[in-house]
């Protein structure tokens, strides 16, 4: 009896221990990705580079291992990097987004077009589909389906055209509204707008400057499977005073003469079905820091902060840079394309952002020579709905071969409660003249 009691006690103890272990283990798995912490540049360089240091052409070799070829080349051409610091995930993305990611973890599948679904075939409800992606397509599905916001108003959204001397010679301005119709986590309806389950988002753009383009409006529908069902668009032409159908699948054409193509938007926005992806690996790299000492662009006026500095005239912005783990993906087109390949650098999930999951991307011409770079300047944490959102203030698209820069700076307002009715052909008239 005594032995039985001992055995019973041992079994109970084992069960308790197992239960406790399982609980801790489970908690550890859940929280692991949120608690991962990247080393600092100081730790990686053995103290040779410290936060606050300036990296320029003369000392760039100290951090060369943590820079992509494009940024290294920019530094050679006059860009300087100020060493900054990183923020933990809970200060970068909303809490509900972290909870949704954990809730649906392990339930995502991705098809050959890079579209994420739940295992039962229903649309992805929101959150990051693959916290520990194993393939390039899973990394890319995270980018497409891991947005943390339901809607956004970006205004003003300015573009400076900058010549090789670093002089701004032309400007245009616009306003952009985006509505995610699926994957909604915060503003009702949660999930998807009824009847719009096949749509990923709707976007409306209204040109505001210069006068010759003022009133030009474009409304675009991006479908959930954007390869099978491609983008649709209508444009309001102020000179013609009418809305006409327009082809919005010319992803290889430049936007308004800038260095950015339609496919370069957000770092890479062409349908995945037309590309092959190869995961190069996960690597510690320097990226623009999430929070600058000051907000780079004023939300009230849309103007650049007076302390925001540039080098080589106004060509290269002076940003803070911090070490962050990134997935490196090589994308090669399946179709005839102006680019031979793109190298895409994707935030690791533990350093996710509200938007712009590519801190930078590189585009190579058909001869395989570095042609362009897309650089995201994050710059500030937005709290429009009380939740933190790592937002983007600036974008640089730099043509290395022409030594020409398109510098975009913007002010964003998140979770404004937009409805599908704000994205109709009739709503284009609101921006018209």
């Amino acid at each position, binding site marked *: 009896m005594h032995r039985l009691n001992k055995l019973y006690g041992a079994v109970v103890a084992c069960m308790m221990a197992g239960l406790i272990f399982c609980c801790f283990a489970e908690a550890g798995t859940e929280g692991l990705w949120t608690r991962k912490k990247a080393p600092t540049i100081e730790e990686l360089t053995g103290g040779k580079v410290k936060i606050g240091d300036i990296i320029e052409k003369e000392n760039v070799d100290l951090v060369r291992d943590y820079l992509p070829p494009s940024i290294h080349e920019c530094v050679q051409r006059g860009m300087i990097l100020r060493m900054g610091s990183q923020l933990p995930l809970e200060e970068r993305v909303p809490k509900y987004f972290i909870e949704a990611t954990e809730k649906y973890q392990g339930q995502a599948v991705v098809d050959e077009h890079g579209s994420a679904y739940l295992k039962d075939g229903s649309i992805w409800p929101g959150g990051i589909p693959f916290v520990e992606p194993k393939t390039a397509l899973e990394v890319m599905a995270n980018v497409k389906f891991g947005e943390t916001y339901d809607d956004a108003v970006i205004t003003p959204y300015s573009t400076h055209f900058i010549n090789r001397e670093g002089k701004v010679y032309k400007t245009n301005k616009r306003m952009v509204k985006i509505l995610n119709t699926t994957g909604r986590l915060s503003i009702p309806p949660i999930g998807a707008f009824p009847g719009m389950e096949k749509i990923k988002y709707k976007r409306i753009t209204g040109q505001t400057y210069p006068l010759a383009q003022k009133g030009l409006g474009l409304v675009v529908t991006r479908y959930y499977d954007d390869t099978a069902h491609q*983008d649709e668009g209508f444009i309001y032409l*102020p000179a013609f005073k009418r809305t006409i159908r327009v082809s919005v699948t010319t992803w290889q054409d430049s936007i308004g003469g800038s260095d950015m193509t339609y496919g370069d938007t957000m770092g890479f926005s062409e349908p995945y079905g037309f590309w092959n992806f190869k995961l190069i690996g996960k690597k510690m790299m320097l990226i623009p820091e999430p929070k600058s000492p000051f907000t780079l662009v004023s939300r009230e006026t849309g103007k650049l902060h007076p302390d925001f500095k540039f080098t080589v005239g106004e060509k290269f912005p002076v940003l803070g840079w911090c070490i962050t783990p990134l997935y490196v993906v090589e994308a090669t087109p399946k179709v005839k394309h102006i680019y031979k390949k793109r190298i895409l650098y994707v935030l690791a999930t533990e350093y996710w952002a509200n938007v712009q999951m590519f801190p930078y991307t590189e585009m190579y011409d058909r001869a395989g020579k570095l042609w362009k770079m897309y650089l995201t300047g994050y710059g500030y944490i937005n709290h429009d709905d009380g939740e933190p959102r790592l937002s983007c203030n600036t974008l640089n698209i730099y043509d290395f071969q022409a030594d020409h820069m398109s510098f975009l700076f913007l002010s964003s307002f998140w979770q404004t409660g937009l409805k599908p009715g704000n994205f109709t*052909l009739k709503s284009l008239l609101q921006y018209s003249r």
Partner: protein
Amino acid sequence: MKRIICIIWALALIIFPGPAGVEPAGAEIQITDNFSVAGFLRYELGVHTGGSNPNNPEQNGNHDFTLSRTFLVTEWVYEPTDNFKLFTKARLIGDQTQRIDNHLRSYDAFPIDVSKNDWTLMKVDGDEYRAEIWEMYGDIKAGNLWLRLGKQQIVWGEMIGTRILDIINPLDMSWHLNFEPEEFENIRIPNWAIRGSYLIEQPFLEELSIEGFINPGDILPQQNPDSGAPFNLMNLPSFMQIHKKHRRDDTEYGFRLGYKVKGVYGTLCYLHLFDDGFKLETEGFAPDHINGVPFFAGQGNFTPYAMLLNAVYQPMDIYGLTLNYDLTYPYNMVFTYEGAWIPNQPYQDRLSSTPEVRDLGTFKWALRIDRPTAVFPPRFMGVDFQHMKIMFQFSQTIREGDENTVSGSNNSKIDKSNEMIVLKFTQPFDHNNWEPMIQFVYDLDDAYMIKPGFKRTCGDHWYFDLYGVFIGGAETRPGRLGYLDYASEIFGRITYQF
């Protein structure tokens, strides 16, 4: 004239003020958070390359210039909320064509007119200048309802440069026909109207909307050039005395339904309008010893008479349809169709011995194909090239019944059908700082117009355009393209926008 100068100075003081009060944001001037003004200052010069205008027989030789105009256009926007906006476009225009070309005899360069007590046009003008409120409207948005009230341009239909359903507002053809590169924006005469649309949200059709407008009486006809103007289209014999029976105070209206079904977007519409071009109707004869002719000499009466005519603008019913479809990547082609059936299109009666009007059912349709195409590599000879915009359009007008019973302009013969092809290429390059284009218009009865040109943008404020308009061909009946061969020209514009 003093009044005009005062207005120009007042505007200049507001637009280019001292350091206080107004903050230029880029080039648009933000007066307050909700109130802004933008605009442009432009000089436009047209050099004549065609023959003498046959409609100006009294002209002293062939003219050298078709146009010399200066514009100050301002657009004032007050937008306190997303749901309410006030917009006003004010224009000050001076025309110097007669002053720089002594071949031209005197004419009114701004012939649009209404009686002095008609306040709605809101203009001050003379033969060589004009100050006016061109557009002035308010936009109100309430849920799915959108309203625009005021003096406005209403454009239905989707064809560019071809007026099938874009016929709600008349055109001011008096100064440059329809050669302006902005299509009709600068010449479509805004009318006072109430316009509204409502988005009907339901689960069956996307983009289902109903739209309508009422013009309660601000009706103007198409404005042709004054007699003696470089582009004058008509030369009436002096014995014809025309009394224009305008349609001001009558009502125009229309309804339109928009919808989208499986990738096809379409509209259906009905319009009740008055013909923009007048037709002549005989009222009678009156003795006129100066301009008259002895109509009844055969009956032994040699008294010279003038023919009294009414220029009438007949009512029309228009039933319209548009459809468009986007054939996506890799084709990137957009197909657009537009058609209109007008059962009572007015024509001049050919069978009558004196001018009368006869209706004939008329069907107009057009098909356009747009395709942005990478003709040049994105980097070519050290310069970046954008996609070339290629546009092809075929349009046709078909008349029911016997076309021999009616006639066109200047009593010309009308065909059973007319066909026109338009091909246009626009190739922006160098970050859109250069935008060359060429447009070919071909009338299948053998007439053509070739319109090459380019736009050069220099920074935020300045741009320059230069275009040629070359017209020719064997089909030279009045009202047809080849008739305008005398209008061939090269014109350029210098614009400062702010």
